[in-house]
């Protein structure tokens, strides 16, 4: 069960939009921006509020890679694995990050909820390949070592 405050927040967000089917994506984007993930209970709640079935809402939300039903870490690391980044060796970066963060296959978020590791298909910065993002910040011409450095820096800041 979600805390009552989640529903209040959802009501606030819904109030910024019209209660109709086409508002679904903007509303759940706002919810995800708030909580860094889309709590399943809130998707069902939004569906009811805007008058669509939960099956339809889930169909839309599960279609987009961008929506996550699992809580995400404070720092979302997006490693680009588009063609340009891939040929310029994004895979070793990914592997290094996995081992640094202790994430085995199938797990994306660290137990301390600090990091979530994802791949994306293209960030549109192919000239700077290989590229990764930490939340909204782009890091270019990455190497495995630079990635480790980045993680350590964030961890250091967090421990202060």
């Amino acid at each position, binding site marked *: 069960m979600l805390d009552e405050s989640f529903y209040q927040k959802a009501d606030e967000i819904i109030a910024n939009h019209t209660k109709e089917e086409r508002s679904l994506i903007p509303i759940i984007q706002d919810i995800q921006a708030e909580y860094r993930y889309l709590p399943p209970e809130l998707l069902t709640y939004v569906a009811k509020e805007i008058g669509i079935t939960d099956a339809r809402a*889930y169909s839309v939300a599960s279609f987009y890679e961008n929506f996550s039903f699992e809580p995400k870490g404070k720092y979302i690391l997006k490693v680009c694995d588009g063609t340009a980044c891939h040929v310029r060796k994004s895979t070793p970066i990914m592997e290094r990050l996995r081992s640094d963060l202790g994430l085995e296959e199938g797990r994306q978020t660290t137990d301390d909820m600090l990091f979530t590791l994802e791949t994306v298909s293209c960030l549109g910065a192919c000239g700077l390949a290989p590229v990764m993002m930490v939340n909204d910040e782009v890091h270019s011409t990455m190497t495995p070592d630079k990635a480790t450095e980045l993680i350590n820096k964030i961890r250091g800041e967090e421990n202060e």
Partner: protein
Amino acid sequence: MGFMTIDGKQVEFTDEPNVLSVIRKADIDIPTLCYHSELSVYGACRLCTVENEKGKTFASCSEKPKDGMVVYTNTPRLMKYRKMILELLLAAHDRDCTTCIKSGECHLQELAHRMGVTTVPYKNRMTHHEIDASSPSIIRNPNKCILCGDCVRMCDNVQAVNAIDFTSRGTSATVAPAFNKLLNTTDCVGCGQCRVVCPTGAISINTNMDPVWEALADPDTKVIAQIAPAVRVAVGDAFDLPQGENVMGKIVNVLHRMGFDEVFDTAYGADLTVIEESEEFLQRLASGENLPLFTSCCPGWVSYCEHRHPELAKHLSTTRSPMQMFGAVAREYYKDPANNEGKKILSVAIMPCTAKKGEILRDESKTDGIADIDYVLTTSELITMIKRSGLMFEDVELESSDMPFGIGSGAGVIFGASGGVTEAVMRRLADKHSRSEMETIRNSGVRGGEGIKEIVITYQDKEYKAAVVSGLANAEKLIQQIESGECNYDFIEVMACRRGCIMGGGQPVDAHSAGGEARAKGLYAADVNTQIKKSNENPLVQSLYDGLLKGKEHKLLHRNFNKPSQ
């Protein structure tokens, strides 16, 4: 209006919505897996792809016919494409055909055979999904799903339930309820229309044949069956008998030979429903409370009403459905040792409906804690059982159903078609029962396949407005209109399946393309052949009220919807 050239032959078209319909009209059975005329066009399977004179290919389901169009349906290129489409579908499919419930009736299997798929050149990359058997009505096996979307559109377009939808995308796409929940935790009403359109074994009936076979073989169990009106005009489909032919006599015979001790007619239960429901309608008219009265014979509709419009639940008739009427009365009758002969009673209902399987499990379907009906078998299961028994259905003699519940009035029989309940109530309320009176009722607009019908019920020179609805999306439309104050009625009959029970989710599916007209005709013909037109004139019903039912009318014939199910 215009002419098209299809495979070199001139074909006229009028108001066909797409090229595909024109091609089919020209006697070419162009393959499809995702096209159903009553659903929105989806264009996913691409099997109906055709070629024009310039070699351009397009899906004929989603192209409007144009005058002068030239279309080829069977070029070597198209045949190659079709074969490849099927090979690709099979490459991600659970291909255990021999043990599949749909084997022999599977559209995918048939097309693969027809298009010459003898091997699948691709590695099978099917990922295993759990089978969902949580619903008493249907079983969902995603391993057999080809993502044609027929069920999704049926559930949404026609039934307005939308319990299932596409989830995820690309290679991980499936059809499932939200969050992959179990079906019995969703708003699924169990109508089974998804199963009717499913071309494969991905959605099938949750069958109950095995325990019935066991009981039939047990000498200490008396197995009784009731047969719903819509069943008798559909079984023949499976045995190459004319569509819509009433084969009640044959069904009674084969059931006796299979070991059923007594075979009765649900039309008898329908007569009880008519009498009680008419009475209830008059009471509500007198008190002015809870109008309009909604019929409640259809468990799909009842469940829809409870989930989506709980505010209307008090409008539902408290009268039991014909099946439950019958079940309760039969239980009471067989309490008497003179009737049960010291044996255990197993009460089986043979129904055109998958939702009935859920209805018997509800609390109000029990009397003194005991379920009135033990098992519901759908028409499709009955057909399977007849085939398994080896009885040659086409050739068996006719037999009449057993006493004391073997006679139903004509009013009880027409329950199977949309409008039947209303017509039966109109007959009950008519002062006279002259031929002309019956004729006036028949021509009141209550019959026919339209989704929403408006009629006037006359009682003691006063006129009351009634509506007859079939298909839950139509019901939803009507409810919206009522709630917005656009229209109002005193009596509303709702059947979850379009055209009523004759097109129920448990019926054999071949005739569905014919729109069920033949089945409706079959039922109305059965009515013509019955001398007793009005439910209250059924002599067996009258003696029941004077005997067995005395003092127990409410307990046995009514139920309470105040408590929502689950």
